[in-house]
């Protein structure tokens, strides 16, 4: 490679490194704001503020869903990494709300660190399969 071209190449690499570094620093500084929601761990440890509007997300703990017979209020637990948070939500659950699936809610933490949500979105995971396969998995699971 001739010296002029080598110099231009170095200049471009330097430019990329500089911009990359600046972006990395900016993203680290904004880390908390880029996270779309707080995990149950952050909600119980005190990282998530109490009484302010926040988003929280996790996996719906199977068997924890309880419906209030009088209105649309449901309570359930969500977890990630073993930490559980109780969620209270009044409204219509999204179509893809399932126990064992992810959800992201918007609402406030009360003093007992229960998450009072007024909006609930279903978070889909990256797994795709036909219904028959899921049936087969369930059967194998029940048989064992």
């Amino acid at each position: 490679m001739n010296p002029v071209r080598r110099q231009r190449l170095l200049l471009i690499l330097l430019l990329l490194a500089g911009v990359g570094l600046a972006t990395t620093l900016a993203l680290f500084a904004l880390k908390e704001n880029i996270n779309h929601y707080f995990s149950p761990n952050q909600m119980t440890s005190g990282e998530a503020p109490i009484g302010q509007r926040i988003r929280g997300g996790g996996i719906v703990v199977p068997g924890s869903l309880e419906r209030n017979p009088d209105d649309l209020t449901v309570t359930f637990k969500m977890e990630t990494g073993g930490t559980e948070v109780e969620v209270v939500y009044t409204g219509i659950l999204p179509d893809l709300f399932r126990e064992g699936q992810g959800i992201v809610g918007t609402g406030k933490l009360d003093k007992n660190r229960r998450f009072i949500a007024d909006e609930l979105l279903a978070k889909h995971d990256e797994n795709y399969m036909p219904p028959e396969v899921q049936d087969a998995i369930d059967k194998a699971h029940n048989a064992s």
Partner: protein
Amino acid sequence: MNWTFFHKLGSPKWFYDISGRWLPWLATISALLMATGLTWGLLFAPPDYLQGNSYRIIFLHVPTAFLASAVYVMMACAGAVTLIWRVKLADVALKCMAPVGASFCLLALITGAIWGKPTWGTWWVWDARLTSVLILLFLYIGVIALRGAIRSTTTAAKACAVLSIVGVVNIPIIKFSVQWWNTLHQGATLKLTEKPAMAPEMLWPLLISILAFYLFFTAVLLLRMRTEILNRERRTQWVQQRLGG
């Protein structure tokens, strides 16, 4: 290694002649693959156990989203070649890629929103993945607008090359956004290192669609580049010969 082929490809005249021979093949194969992949995916692949039929938009969403990122990386590479080696053809490629990439990016955003409504319960959220892809669209529009704003071809080439290279830092952010931060968008289904988290009867039509979209992009790019070359070289003898003869 014999580099003659690449040097010849760098000359607009050679590129024009060779791409003319490739184009019919590329167009035919991509049309066949797209018909196969999309028909298979949209009509014959089994429904998903949770999402039912709404997941089928994946056969459009994933290929367009892949292309949106890939085209930007190609633009950055073309920009580097323009700046370092001053290959005229690289700038032609960069110019012709930008609107195509922007279209793919817009399609990925729109198909994603249409899928998000029934799946998540919302058209749009400001999570890291969705926001970074929106920034990608703005970068594309920026590159297109920058070229439009500068009259001199050589100055425009340099400016667009620099912007393309700088913008490429956004690509790893898009790719890893779903791992680095909590996002509503799910993680990657297709991974290079692991088995894909998708049943094979859904995966095959998806892979065929992705390949079809790549070939479609190549065909469209060649077509646009040939027009651009004719326009830029219109005063040369070879263009006069080919058009006048």
